[in-house]
């Protein structure tokens, strides 16, 4: 039974469901054969709450407390699956019983998320029985520290925190830097809007991160580790704390780990949750109790980090991958993925997509496979328009790039980044100018404000976009916008500013027409920009039900019961409330061209 963020966190009645399942088991006297336990996130949050019968893998979706009895009775006593709770394939209409055959999972390759959804994150025995802490024993007993670094280098593992720097290189820099003691940090700040992969891993499989950190510490000769978690993730913090305590009891952490002379311990640091604190230099400042301001690099943290000592900082996913590499070997790992990007990538699929959730695929999988085969495409019959990858620092890629194999190099060439793995799918109701504006707004609020290009430049870009959205843009604005974008990219102090213009640059690159129609025609093709559209009521469809009349906050709708309604354009504020309220979908949006036609008629 999944108690991840999507299932347990957002939907009520989770405890109730667990209670009912346990009660049902007791009722049927099955408590010797059936054990009810909870796990972390399965990734397919849209179908939650999810209950999986292990080890066979029957996959029940949208389970409610009242279904508990049915599941236990029918599944275990009659040995028949409860059909109505199974996953139904939207295309074929068939019910699919097994986890691995659901298209969402079938096309994935789960390495980092290997245990997520299969083990109880609060029990170290569960992790150990899945082969956990074997990699640690192997490293400590069979490998010299340098051999561990060599192995990681050979595997081609690149950091999953955004920049994609070679993990092996980073470790060897840190090892070579003079200075004692050395520190390692696990970066679990995860401030991107819509990203929740690090959180899911910490909540579903905290031991894999701990094991990765211990191996890293052994390789670099570090004696102390920090994990910087957002304070907004209380469940992750709690599970991680339980996990470190269990690891200490089992002598995986602390003095003389596994009776060797290697000692290492982890301290949990709860961050205040500013996006910029995910930047490594700001994070280090924050751990030292200073303001979370980035500082220019070099010197890099690997030479001068926490307390001025060599520090290696890696992402949660990077650490969670390390034990698998040690267990199965660098050769195996480097056989997965593409030339320059090895292994797998995790994405949080959101936006206009049928199956939203957390997925893991090999590098080299195309955007089309991710969005259509796993994600199930764009729902409600709308057309796919683009996909924003990498969160606010990433770029927006158009439909023409759907066949692009996803890896670091291709993403960078197309002007985007992989970033932490957010993927927001957009359909033809999404306005690209507005999208860029949304992300700039996020950046201008979240930037630390230290350096001029980011603080003033991003705000200036935001103001220009706002003018364009309000229908007051001019063609010179577009040139200035591009010039500003270049400056902010080149001149900013830290990665936040350096990547902030990406959404603007890519939308201008791939959707320039849309900017031009906003500026020249004063028209928003996606009909999203309020200043450039008008609401009207389709006379043929309106039934005169008066629902819109009641919903309009500015009383702009005129009409009597049973008669056709109209909208007073002078009072209407384009809020769109009526559109959502109308049961016969009679309220329509008009862009500038359509408005002119209507006026002519």
């Amino acid at each position, binding site marked *: 039974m999944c108690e991840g963020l999507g299932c347990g966190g957002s939907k009520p009645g989770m405890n109730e469901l667990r209670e009912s399942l346990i009660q049902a088991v007791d009722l049927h006297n099955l408590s010797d054969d059936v054990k009810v336990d909870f796990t972390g996130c399965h990734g397919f949050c849209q179908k939650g709450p999810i209950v999986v019968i292990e080890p066979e893998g029957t996959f029940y979706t949208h389970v409610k407390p009242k279904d508990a009895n049915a599941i236990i009775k029918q599944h275990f006593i009659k040995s028949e699956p409860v059909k109505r709770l199974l996953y139904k394939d939207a295309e074929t209409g068939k019910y699919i019983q097994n986890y691995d055959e659901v298209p969402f999972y079938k096309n994935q390759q789960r390495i980092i998320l290997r245990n997520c959804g299969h083990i109880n994150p609060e029990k170290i025995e569960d992790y150990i029985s899945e082969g956990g802490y074997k990699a640690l024993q192997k490293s400590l007993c069979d490998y010299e520290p340098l051999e561990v670094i060599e192995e990681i280098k050979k595997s081609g593992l690149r950091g999953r925190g955004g920049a994609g720097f070679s993990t092996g290189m980073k470790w060897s820099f840190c090892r070579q830097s003079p200075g004692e003691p050395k520190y390692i940090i696990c970066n679990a700040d995860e401030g991107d809007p819509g990203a929740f992969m690090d959180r899911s891993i910490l909540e579903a499989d905290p031991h894999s991160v701990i094991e990765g950190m211990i191996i890293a510490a052994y390789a670099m000769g570090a004696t102390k580790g920090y994990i910087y978690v957002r304070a907004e993730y209380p469940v992750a913090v709690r599970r991680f704390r339980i996990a470190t305590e269990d690891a200490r009891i089992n002598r995986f952490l602390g003095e003389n780990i596994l009776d060797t002379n290697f000692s290492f311990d982890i301290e949990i640091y709860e961050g205040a949750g500013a996006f*910029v604190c995910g930047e490594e230099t700001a994070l280090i400042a924050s751990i030292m109790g200073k303001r979370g301001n980035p*500082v*220019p690099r070099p010197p890099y943290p690997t030479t001068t980090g926490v307390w001025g000592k060599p520090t290696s900082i890696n992402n949660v996913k990077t650490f969670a991958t390390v034990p698998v590499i040690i267990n199965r070997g660098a050769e195996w790992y480097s056989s997965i993925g593409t030339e320059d990007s090895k292994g797998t990538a995790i994405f949080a699929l959101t936006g206009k997509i049928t199956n939203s959730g957390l997925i893991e695929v090999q590098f080299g999988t195309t955007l089309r496979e991710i969005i259509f085969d796993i994600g199930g495409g764009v729902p409600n019959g709308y057309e796919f328009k683009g996909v924003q990858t990498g969160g606010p620092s990433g770029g927006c890629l158009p439909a023409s790039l759907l066949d692009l194999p996803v890896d670091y190099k291709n993403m960078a060439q197309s002007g985007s980044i992989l970033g932490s793995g957010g993927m927001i799918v957009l359909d033809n109701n999404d306005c690209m100018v507005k999208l860029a504006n949304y992300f700039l707004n996020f950046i201008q609020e979240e930037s630390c404000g230290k350096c*001029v290009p980011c603080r*003033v430049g991003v705000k200036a870009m935001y103001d220009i976009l706002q003018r364009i959205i309000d229908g007051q843009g001019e063609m010179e604005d577009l040139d200035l916008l591009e010039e500003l974008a270049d400056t902010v990219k080149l001149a900013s102090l830290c990665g936040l500013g350096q990547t902030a213009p990406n959404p603007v640059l890519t939308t201008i690159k791939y959707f320039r027409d849309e900017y031009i129609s906003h500026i020249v025609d004063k028209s928003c093709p996606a009909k999203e920009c309020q200043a450039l559209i008008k609401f009207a009521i389709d006379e043929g469809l309106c039934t005169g039900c008066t629902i819109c009349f009641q919903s309009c906050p500015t009383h702009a709708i005129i009409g009597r019961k049973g008669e056709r309604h109209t909208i007073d354009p002078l009072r209407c504020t384009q809020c769109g409330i009526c559109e959502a309220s109308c049961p016969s979908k009679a309220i329509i949006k008009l862009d500038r061209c359509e408005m002119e036609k209507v006026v002519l008629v």
Partner: protein
Amino acid sequence: MPTIKIDGIDFDSPPGWTVLEVARFLGLDIPTLCHYDGLEPWGACRLCLVEVFDANGSKLVSSCTHPVSEGLDIKTATKRVIKTRNMVLELLISECPSSKVLQDMASKLGLNRVRIAPKWKDCILCGLCVRVCEEQMMAGAIQFGNRGQHLEVSPPFDIKSDLCRQCGACMQICPVITLRCDGADAATVLCNGCYNETQPSCADEFDSYDCWMGLKGECGTCYQVIETKKEE
């Protein structure tokens, strides 16, 4: 001693110097604002940008913070540097057109237009006052508060701080409140009273930085000299 190359000059730099220190030592002019001798480098105004070249291409770094290292190859005034630096200055002036320090710099660097609506703020958040108060006066009476658009300099909790000895160092160092420049024209936002016609030449064209004939590398006299020499 790391050997570095700056504007075509090979130089054995003492270890631990920054690029800015080397440039100043060699008499190369790099504009700075948030840098102040005696305070720790801060790297926030981004006016001291220079271009660093390596095998993968080049990038812009702030010279006041960038330490020298063996084989470093720097140019202090490429087209890219000049363009970016002027845009940064344009942004700064739009924030606070009444700062004489900024207006002087605009004149010196040849900035002659500001396309961003002026905000007429009183502080450009350069952080000099905060740093002088903490590092030199050992008081720490003023701090940065908030972030992003809401960043501000104030005493903790916005109340008069007991730590302040009223030494006046913050006021003395501030590039905005001392010597207001009254010349800013409300329409163009620039004063340009002391506009400098002679701009430093562009190091993209010439490998060294010793042409002072000015006119943004357009005069071309040296080209002619080189050409005639070749013909001979």
